[in-house]
């Protein structure tokens, strides 16, 4: 902790991230662990709870103007639901919010998700630092895009 940090106002611009499990999936231990890890990494974390629809996830992402949406599913529906979130983003003309994924995702699906713009796609056992690095990189790209339009 930097001395006095809580006494003065923070100068940095924390990464804002939305965590969501869109779809019928109640396995939230992983995403809760990540939520706390992201908070401890200095991010502003919003978790929308269980069972949001893809529409709710996209609306929330826009209203909160997050840098990154992190989707997690462990029920095998990622090719349907992650895709739906990416499609809705595109329909609404949003290209300055990054989407990352995680959960039980077979290796064969990963390139397909990447093609939709959903990166990361980490499975169980991934070191948290690796996930944080990836999100920091994606967020930096997005911040640059917002600032310059490129």
């Amino acid at each position, binding site marked *: 902790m930097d001395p006095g940090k809580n006494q003065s106002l923070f100068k940095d611009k924390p990464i804002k991230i939305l965590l969501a499990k869109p779809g019928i999936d109640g396995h939230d231990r992983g995403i809760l662990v990540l939520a706390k890890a992201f908070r*401890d990494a200095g991010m502003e974390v919003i978790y929308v709870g269980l069972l949001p629809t893809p529409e709710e996830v996209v609306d929330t992402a826009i209203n909160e103007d997050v840098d990154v949406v992190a989707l997690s599913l462990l029920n095998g529906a990622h090719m349907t639901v992650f895709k739906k979130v990416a499609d809705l983003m595109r329909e609404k003309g949003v290209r300055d919010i990054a989407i990352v994924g995680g959960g039980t995702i077979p290796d064969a699906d990963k390139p397909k998700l990447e093609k939709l713009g959903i990166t990361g796609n980490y499975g169980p056992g991934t070191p948290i630092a690796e996930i944080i690095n990836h999100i920091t990189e994606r967020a930096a790209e997005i911040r640059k895009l917002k600032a310059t339009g490129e």
Partner: protein
Amino acid sequence: MKVLKIEEIVQGILDGNRRAVSRGISVVENDYDTAAARRIIREIFPHTGHAQIVGITGPPGIGKSTMIGNLSATLSKKGFRISVVAIDASSPFSGGSLLGNRIRMQESLSKYGVYMRSLANRGLNGGLSRSVWDTVKILDASGSDYIIVETVGAGQADLDIVNLADTVIVVLGPGLGDEIQAIKAGIMEIGHVFVINKMDRQGAFIAMKDIEETLAMSPKGEWKPPVIGVNSLNGEGYEAFIEKIQEHRSFVKSHSDLTMRKFRTELQRTILEELRRRFESDISHFLSDNEEIKQLVRDKIDPYSAAEKLVKKIA
């Protein structure tokens, strides 16, 4: 859609476009002292003044977020446009934050299309965040009728909300303490409407009585803060609650000195911040590891005299 430019953000805010509103808030939150943020506020400011800003404060866990969910649903059904701003604490260690207020109101948000934004306090004490003053201006200019602001779960001394909101709702509940608790200074003095939540719980009526007695002893202003009991699980008491909010709105509208006082307080805050910003580099220069500061230590100069001496140099 391409990336939003400042003029698009301004126009979008005035048109009530969600994406523009969201991005505008991000600009005033992240780049508050840039020309872009100032320009947004400058250009939308003439369009503000319509919304009633309702502040909700009270101890953590008393049901503020759930109450906002019910309140925004009931007001939306009456045809009003509602926006919600909820503030949570940032970690003093990492600077990160878990913005968890949304989860309690998601249902009403989706169902009634209520705009909701979570802000982290980013180290500001007092129950609010620095950017919240500009955030409510943006939401006001975007056409909201009511802007509901939820403070960080507040202690007795987190009272900034009184300078921001037109109407301050203090939420309390059964089991929070006796009448001694209720006559302490601070949170009991800032409420325009007192709400006892969880009326289904034991002790709720005693809590109501304690608050009413305390208020009866307070100096009599023109506005007498009412005490309302509600049950957020079944919506009991919300109609009376909303009536009081609207009553207070007409009271504020008919007292222009209140608006004036609010403006003065905000101007004072902004002037102080502007001064701080302007002299920030001077101040950090004084504090840096230079010969002068070492001399002050060697001469055993007390902090007041030292500060006076240094500040003279700027002026």
